[in-house]
């Protein structure tokens, strides 16, 4: 077939880019080569629009062993242990085929973790759907949740947390972000950089089929009414094979057979072989006849672009091939020596004894296009009026409305489809502030959280970016963990639009500021652009996955009220910011205005003060205050502990709605025993932390004199009913 402009366009390559290809290789590419360029130069693999800004993010602190650029980030958690973690999006495939899209999203991120030698010990996910009443939402929700469960449950890895959100911005473009976390010995981490020439390149895992061809290119384009036709670009997962691959890889990793290893994820064999060789500044030669194929008569083009799942590429030390083969045969997996490393710095593919492709690796990696896209500052929000008469709404009815709204209702229906306790080390399951998993056989644990704030980010991307990082930080603090680092998944619309690019640039700026100030670096992540359908972009949605360390599990904290008669303290100042709050959105139907400001100084100080109280055993329970303000957080603590609270009216100069529903940042609620009150106050005063004592825990009901009186059982009903009703 001769290459014509139409074929070039179909490969997602722009005219200028095609000219660049010709210039780089000094001739026209053949079809196979064009396919390879399309796989490597698309947005998903090349980060051509985002690289410039990603480079500005802080990626180091004294705990970081490996930052961005590898299969996943790695942090040191002492005693020779390290944690490997990363988040990735699988938005486009999940919208086209929710079960397989979500399942392979989990499969892909798990491979990134065990490729580095780590045994996965937890997964989390952040899933965003359109309006609950939108025709597609229910079906997508069912499909995505059972897909995530179907894969993770079979792998035997607990799902420890996540978020499920609804927002009409995702009506035609849902988000499925999956995060995985693994444990590895610090001195047994495996990397993808190839070393040495004439080393065997080995293909292991599943056979290659025709599924997922051009998946990465599909994920680099927007959707339209013909989206359904893209179904064949979605990969089909087999968690059973992945489980075998996991065990086989970890078994082989016991000794020093492996020089480097890379999973075949987006752009399959193409990107894995190119990345390994180009990182090692080598060349690579592959005999396409050696690729294990699932179907007959597959062409090199199909083999190179297939995104069949559960496959890995290894480079082994000389003489180790037979021992390695034994292990993979034991686990019933394919094992094929498909080529070798060379010193040519080229990718050479042979098929039926003929050279079918020969490309300089630099053209595919370092010389790939980079864009400095035009962007527009987001509009400054003018002073706007608050909705009329919000002061006359009843506190009680408002709380009930918020508590039973889709976004704030309990998500047990979702969590209960994910195995949370397999591996026997789960300490906190989904539903608290962070998931907590013990390090097997040790007395320490890690805390994990995943967060996003769509509406804040749309209203003001810089503040929204900051806030999302702070939210993760606060969730880790609330369980008594020292926040260490984050991974982020940046979900945006079409970067060729100046407004979208502006949202991206500003969000990164916000994330950067918060990460820098909190010494909470980004060690891995992924960018997902082109989240739009028929020209409608989603709201900017950065998702942050945070990891913290709990050195002694006895110091772990939970958010359920523990006992009747304890004091309730608010740490941090309440200013009464109601724009973008759940109260305005759910009760007043009002979506305008700026998000609450983030004060990083307070964030850090308040956080460390709370951590100090927890480590001194002075707090009985801790919960951060986020969406829904003080009152929703209190209600959640009551529900979780089945204990009520008697709350005083505020003494400050704010109206009661501002006080109880305001979403000011950097705040926590803590429960303090009577006997500990003095010491707690002493510590807080010494550290100049603003705090208020707002009431006491009591039996059975949450009470604000003359304003609100709701029984715990009613709170639970309100909180659980919406989802139950929606789903049946």
């Amino acid at each position, binding site marked *: 077939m001769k290459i014509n402009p139409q074929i070039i366009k179909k490969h997602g390559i722009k005219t200028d880019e095609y000219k660049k290809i010709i210039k780089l290789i000094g001739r026209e590419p053949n079809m196979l080569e064009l396919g390879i360029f399309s796989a490597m130069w698309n947005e998903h693999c090349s980060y051509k629009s985002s690289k410039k800004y990603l480079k500005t993010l802080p990626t180091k602190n004294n705990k970081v062993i490996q930052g961005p650029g590898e299969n996943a980030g790695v942090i040191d958690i002492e005693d020779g242990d390290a944690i490997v973690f990363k988040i990735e999006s699988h938005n486009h495939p999940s919208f086209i085929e929710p079960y397989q899209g979500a399942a392979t999203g989990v499969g892909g991120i798990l491979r990134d973790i065990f490729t580095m030698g780590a045994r996965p010990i937890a997964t989390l996910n952040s899933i965003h759907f359109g309006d609950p009443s939108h025709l597609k939402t229910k079906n997508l929700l069912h499909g995505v949740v*059972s897909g995530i*469960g*179907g894969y993770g*449950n*079979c*792998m*035997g890895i607990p799902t420890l947390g996540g978020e499920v959100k609804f927002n009409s911005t995702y009506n035609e473009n849902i988000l499925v972000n999956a995060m995985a976390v693994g444990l590895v010995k610090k001195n047994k981490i495996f990397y993808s950089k190839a070393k040495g020439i004439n080393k065997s390149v080995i293909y292991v895992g599943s056979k290659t089929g025709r599924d997922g061809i051009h998946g990465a290119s599909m994920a680099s384009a927007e959707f339209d009414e013909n989206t359904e036709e893209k179904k064949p670009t979605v990969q089909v997962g*087999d*968690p*059973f*094979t992945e*489980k*075998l691959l996991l065990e086989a890889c970890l078994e082989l990793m016991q000794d020093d057979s492996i020089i480097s290893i890379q999973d075949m994820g987006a752009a399959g064999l193409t990107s894995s072989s190119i990345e390994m060789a180009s990182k090692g500044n080598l060349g690579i030669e592959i005999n396409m006849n050696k690729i294990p194929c699932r179907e007959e008569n597959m062409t090199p083009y199909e083999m190179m672009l297939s995104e069949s799942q559960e496959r890995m590429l290894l480079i082994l030390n000389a003489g180790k091939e037979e021992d390695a083969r034994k292990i993979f045969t034991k*686990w*019933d997996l394919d094992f094929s020596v498909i080529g070798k490393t060379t010193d040519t710095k080229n990718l050479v593919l042979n098929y039926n004894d003929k050279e079918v492709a020969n490309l300089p690796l630099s053209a595919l990696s370092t010389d790939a296009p980079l864009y400095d896209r035009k962007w527009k500052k987001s509009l400054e929000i003018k002073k706007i009026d608050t909705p009329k008469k919000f002061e006359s709404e009843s506190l009680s009815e408002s709380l009930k409305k918020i508590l039973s709204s889709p976004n704030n209702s309990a998500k*047990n229906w979702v*969590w*209960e*489809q*994910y*195995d*949370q*306790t*397999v*591996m*026997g*080390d*789960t*300490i906190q*399951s989904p539903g608290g502030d962070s998931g907590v998993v*013990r390090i097997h056989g040790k007395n320490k644990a890690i805390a994990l959280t995943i967060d996003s704030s769509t509406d804040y980010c749309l209203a003001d991307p810089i503040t929204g970016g900051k806030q999302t990082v702070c939210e993760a930080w606060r969730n880790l603090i609330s369980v008594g963990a020292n926040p260490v680092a984050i991974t982020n998944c940046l979900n945006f619309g079409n970067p060729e639009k100046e407004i979208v690019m502006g949202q991206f640039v500003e969000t990164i700026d916000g994330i950067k500021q918060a990460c820098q100030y909190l010494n909470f670096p980004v060690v891995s992540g992924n960018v997902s652009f082109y989240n739009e359908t028929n020209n409608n972009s989603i709201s900017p949605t950065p998702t942050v996955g945070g990891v913290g360390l709990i050195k002694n*599990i*006895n110091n772990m904290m939970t958010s359920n009220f523990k006992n009747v008669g304890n004091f309730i303290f608010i740490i941090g100042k309440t200013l009464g910011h109601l724009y973008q709050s759940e109260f305005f959105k759910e009760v007043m139907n009002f979506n305008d205005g700026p998000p609450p400001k983030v004060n990083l100084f307070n964030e850090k100080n308040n956080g460390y003060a709370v951590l100090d109280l927890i480590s001194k055993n002075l707090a009985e329970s801790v919960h951060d205050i986020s969406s829904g303000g003080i009152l929703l957080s209190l209600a959640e603590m009551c529900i979780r502990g089945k204990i009520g609270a008697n709350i005083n009216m505020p003494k400050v100069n704010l109206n009661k709605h501002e006080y109880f529903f305001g979403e000011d940042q950097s705040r926590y609620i803590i429960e303090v025993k009577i006997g500990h009150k003095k010491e707690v106050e002493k510590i807080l005063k010494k550290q100049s932390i603003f705090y208020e004592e707002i009431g006491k825990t009591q039996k059975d009901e949450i009470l604000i004199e003359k304003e609100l009186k709701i029984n715990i059982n009613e709170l639970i009903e309100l909180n659980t009913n919406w989802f139950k009703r929606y789903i049946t």
Partner: protein
Amino acid sequence: MKSSVVVFPGSNCDRDVAVALKKFNIKNQMVWHEESSLPKSDLVVLPGGFSYGDYLRSGCIASKSKIINDVIKHGKNGGLILGICNGFQILIETGLLPGVLLRNKRLRFISKSVFLKVENTNNIFCKNYKKKNIIELPIAHNEGNYFANNYLIQKLEDLNLVAFKYCNQEGKIEKNFNPNGSLNNIAGILNENKNILGMMPHPERFIDPYLSGEDGSNLFKSLFESL
């Protein structure tokens, strides 16, 4: 006491149960599915997971695996067998335990903590539950909906072969507290000789007070103390 945990491709609770056995001083070894004979063992454990991907039907392919003949022989000779979750499904598929495990009533995977009443404490697995017979353990399965004909259910009840039933915190056994639709709220059963136990809940996951609970400990203690 010596035990063997059989590892099938796709087993994923093999390590967890090995950790539990070790914690309660039972000498354990792992046995790969392709072995043709078991090492000398008092107890054989078929662990949870998705043996052979649960393709065809949960536990079905494992019931035809190479090692399983020796497991069946061991059980028929009076040796102890504990099947947890997928292990229970395998025991059913081999015919060592009667009935079937259907898909959960609501056709969804269910993972949560449930309350159980230990209905029979007169067997080697459960005798330590005499003092406290209402316990909390996690379940995590897709096919745990126990079903059999009336005759068989009656027989299980008459011979006191139901080991565990789903209940509430007070031990009330009602439909409301049945997570998966299984008949008579059955969560685990014994064979007639009471040397084989199959159960859907995971005792090996609740053996540590620092984690979610330790109601699983008494099962392993019972086993250790029996020999």
